[in-house]
């Protein structure tokens, strides 16, 4: 029982009159990496964004069904979205560092959650950057603008920024799609080291990436969840014909 971190139940999502997600059922294990795969427009990113209620920011979105995080339905009326997002962190497709210093980027989250003391902040900044394997590269220029970093460094900075608010679920929306191969490799390695302490869900376009880093893989098509299984099983022995077509590269 306790090994389940997230459960999605009967989830439907509409953009205006268009239904983007159909009746999704999903369970995500604690301390695992789950990959969402599927062709563009299949709903994988949309589903990811329901897990920290990022879709609330978009007009015209209607959601029915339930999403439990730690046994709590996050679409309940009394749920505090701010608290939810503290627990469920997110990294985006394109790195989006704030136009401020590296230090201030990392300290942003802790500060808005009430940590004011410089000593505490210093410690969080260093620890988060260490965890994101960026500390050695930036420790001498913490006060410089984060926009001066390379794309790969910026993405690891965004990961560090997320870790600084101490979440327990990490949502990653195609985190390497804008990065070069070497940076991609670094981010992938990072997910492996983070896995022990966090539950990670990663949306990816890249099936090799899903195969390399994830424990479970979920395949989406046209807003439907087609198949969810252990990564090994899904890549070697897909149950559904459409999954097989997709992973063997027949479409997508």
């Amino acid at each position, binding site marked *: 029982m306790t090994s389940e971190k997230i459960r999605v139940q009967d989830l439907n999502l509409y953009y205006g009159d268009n239904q983007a997600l159909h009746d999704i059922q999903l369970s995500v294990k604690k301390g695992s990496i789950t990959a969402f795969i599927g062709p563009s427009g299949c709903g994988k990113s949309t589903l990811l964004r329901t897990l920290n209620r990022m879709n609330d920011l978009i007009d015209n979105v209607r959601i029915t069904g339930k999403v439990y995080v730690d046994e709590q339905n996050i679409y309940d009326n009394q749920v505090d979205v*701010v608290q939810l997002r503290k627990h469920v962190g997110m990294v985006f497709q394109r790195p989006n560092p704030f136009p401020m210093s590296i230090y201030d980027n990392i300290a942003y989250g802790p500060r808005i*959650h*009430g940590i004011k003391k410089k000593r505490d902040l210093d410690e969080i900044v260093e620890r988060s950057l260490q965890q994101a394997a960026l500390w050695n590269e930036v420790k001498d220029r913490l006060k410089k603008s984060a926009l001066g970093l390379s794309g790969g460094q910026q993405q690891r900075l965004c990961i560090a920024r997320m870790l600084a608010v101490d979440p327990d679920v990490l949502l990653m929306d195609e985190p390497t799609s804008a990065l070069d191969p070497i940076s991609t490799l670094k981010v992938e390695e990072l997910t492996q080291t983070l896995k022990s302490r966090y539950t990670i869900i990663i949306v990816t376009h890249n099936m090799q990436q899903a195969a390399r880093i994830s424990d479970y893989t979920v395949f989406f098509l046209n807003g439907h969840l087609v198949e969810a299984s252990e990564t090994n099983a899904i890549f070697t022995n897909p149950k559904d014909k459409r999954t097989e077509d997709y992973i063997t590269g027949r479409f997508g």
Partner: protein
Amino acid sequence: MGKLSDRVATILLWFIGLSILAILFWFLYRILSQGLPHLAPRFVFGMPEEILPGGGVGPQLFNSFYILLLSLAISIPLGIGAGVWLAEYAKKHWFTDLIRLSTEMLASVPSIVFGLFGMLVFVTVLGLGFSIIGGALTLSLLNLPILVRVTEETLRGLPGSYREASAALGATKWQTIKSVLLPTSLLGLITGITLVAGRALGESAILIFTAGVSVSRFAPDFNVFASGETLSVHLWYVLSEGLVPDAREIAEGSAALLVLVILIINLCLALPFRYWYRRSSGR
């Protein structure tokens, strides 16, 4: 803590937004409710009085439009021409930068300074006197920078494929501009012109010292050398220097008339165009 400040900010911002809305509507209501009752035909089309009450603003209304049209006739070809050059011909070097900078500078000149310049050059040096043409010439200086900017921005907004397609058919640059680029940017240009027209119609500081504060005895007088007090100038003149006992009523009536004309220009032309344009260009 973060939540409290969020709530306070939300309330405060709603308060600000609604009070701006309230101020704007109160303002409009006040002008129209006080002025509209004065707008009898005898007022709108009648001749003004110098000392007795009951004067109209007919010649001023005529002058407003006459000066506006003359100033547009002078500034539109020049403004569009300069805009076309900046968008289609200009390469990036110091001369282009200079022209762009000087257009921006021209846009920032206070209208009273335009007024003095017009008085110096057109009224005094060229000897036009306080006249409709003196006012129109000076007013066109105010229009120019906006027209240049709107033309340049509109042309730049057009896809480069238009130019390539036309050039590939063997059209010269001028043929491309004349037959493809200007027609397709017509909507943007009209928006710009209505913007300019609204501003020019309400202008007063420029015209006091160039078109004067009196009107011809004949109305309508198409003579461009007649003195040409406009409605906006008249509004100011009756309040600050006028001798008529019903100055306030005339001012209120003129204000309502001005706002009405500007509302009509905006509602009929500028706003639908602008919103349609914004939507169609995906912004």
